[in-house]
């Protein structure tokens, strides 16, 4: 018996073999991995997890690979921070940050999904991997393909932040910058995937790949002492991360590791690309695609594949979806950095901006726990905050010069425009 039964259409329920397939050929619905939970129950236990590796592979029994992991052995199990400083600014006693800015190998949550996707791609016999990416995914696929000695093609929008472009090139993959936005890249890749026998992690390998995001829920529960938080705030790009975090909570409850889930799942988008937040506000169950225009490029998906499901999950959990302006994104980034020492990328600014908005609205009641998912590292999107950070004191190498500068700074504190 194997833990993977096969793939199953989330819409019409049609079954497929556990191959490199992502779409139901009858209704075009998404395929999901279907598990033998009865079998998994006989294998998994809290004790086994606790003795497992300090990586996402401690939850291997709930991940869609057949053998042992071979790629991304150090991905996941990132710190959970009890954010007392930020919490006190926002009036929250139990604010936690899931800090994937320090994920391994490439400083974003994408290392989780890629570790699973490339391990599975190797199991399925592929020698070439690829992806359509807003940046972080491309970085992670490039790095892990280098580690796994796989041929690699990454497709990115041509206007990406320089740090994310360089974060591909260093690993020597084939980097294809497409003149268009992410939705153009995604459509092109769907067409390319139909023509070349490659493992596109977020296209034909997507059912396996997306399961890696469940580990962000498992880790949160384990790190909170085998409890579900009362609230989570999750950034929404395609919506996959949010739906898989929900799935992770429910799986642990189903296995009896935590009490039945009552977590309210809140979504965060940037105003310049908020098709899911807008559908939520307008109480629609369908997404109207938009043309993204925001500095939060990692979330700039105008036609989100899982937007429909993200809406469903948020509604079902009694959560909310909010959006914030680019100014609030930058403010969120600087707020997080100066209170907790965490330098997150723009997506983290979106999450913190929305967290702040929800806190102001009184969504979080006294004593409730909140986990905010910080999914990527600020060193990759420096241009977004650079303009508001001011400049260092420039002094001569003398005590007098320093003392003069110190005095001047007392009179005119260093610019902190991002903090208002």
């Amino acid at each position, binding site marked *: 018996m194997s833990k993977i039964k096969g793939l199953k259409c989330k*819409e019409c329920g049609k079954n497929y073999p556990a191959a490199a397939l*992502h*779409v*139901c*050929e*009858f*209704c*075009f*619905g*998404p395929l999901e991995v279907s598990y033998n939970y009865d079998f998994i129950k006989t294998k998994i236990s809290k004790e086994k997890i606790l003795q497992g590796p300090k990586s996402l592979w401690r939850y291997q029994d709930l991940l869609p690979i057949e053998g042992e992991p071979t790629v991304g052995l150090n991905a996941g199990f990132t710190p959970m921070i009890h954010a007392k400083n930020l919490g006190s600014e926002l009036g929250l006693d139990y604010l936690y940050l899931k800090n994937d800015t320090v994920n391994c190998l490439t400083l974003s949550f994408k290392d989780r999904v890629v570790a699973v996707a490339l391990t599975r791609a190797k199991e399925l016999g592929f020698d070439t991997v690829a992806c*359509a990416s807003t940046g972080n995914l491309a970085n992670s696929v490039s790095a892990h393909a280098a580690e796994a000695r796989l041929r690699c093609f990454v497709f990115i929008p041509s206007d990406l932040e320089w740090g994310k472009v360089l974060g591909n090139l260093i690993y020597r993959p084939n980097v294809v910058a497409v003149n*268009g936005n*992410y*939705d*153009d890249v*995604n*459509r092109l*890749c*769907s*067409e390319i*995937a*139909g*023509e070349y026998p490659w493992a596109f992690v*977020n*296209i034909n390998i*997507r059912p396996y790949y*997306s399961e890696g995001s469940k580990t962000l829920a498992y880790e949160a529960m384990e790190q909170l002492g085998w409890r579900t938080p009362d609230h989570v705030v999750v950034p929404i*790009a*395609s*919506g*996959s*991360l949010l739906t898989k975090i929900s799935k992770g909570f429910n799986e642990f409850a189903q296995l009896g590791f935590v009490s039945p889930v009552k977590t309210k799942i809140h979504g965060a988008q940037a105003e310049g690309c908020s098709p899911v937040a807008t559908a939520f506000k307008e109480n629609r169950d*369908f997404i*109207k*695609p938009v*043309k993204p225009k925001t500095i939060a490029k990692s979330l700039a*998906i105008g*036609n*989100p*594949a*899982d937007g*429909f499901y993200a809406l469903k999950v948020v509604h079902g959990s009694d959560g909310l979806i909010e959006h914030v302006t680019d100014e609030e994104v930058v403010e969120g980034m600087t707020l997080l950095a100066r209170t907790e020492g965490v330098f997150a990328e723009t997506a983290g600014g979106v999450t913190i901006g929305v967290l702040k908005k929800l806190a102001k609205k009184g969504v979080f009641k006294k004593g409730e726990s909140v986990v905010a998912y910080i999914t990527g590292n600020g060193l990759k999107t420096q241009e977004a905050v650079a303009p508001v950070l001011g400049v260092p004191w420039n002094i001569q190498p003398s005590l007098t010069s320093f003392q003069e500068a110190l005095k001047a700074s007392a009179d005119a504190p260093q610019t902190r425009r991002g903090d208002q």
Partner: protein
Amino acid sequence: MIKVRIPTPLRKLTGGQGEVDGEGDNVAALINTLDKEYPGLKERLCDEQGELRRFVNIYINEEDIRFHQGMMTPVKKGDEISIVPAIAGG
């Protein structure tokens, strides 16, 4: 003739062809004519009301028809149409 690119899940209906030719003044008409040659195609793409299914995207010259007039978006000779499953990416 209008070139229409067919995604893998629909190629069983087009005898394995990844690209077919069609005719029509708008997307709805184009799909109707394609359905005559490749029966079953329309049912896969459209719901009972003739609207595009949730998980299907159609592009005219790389532009999503949902940004235009949906199924009523005009098409003309020389246009390139792509039918692409919506579930991808992210």
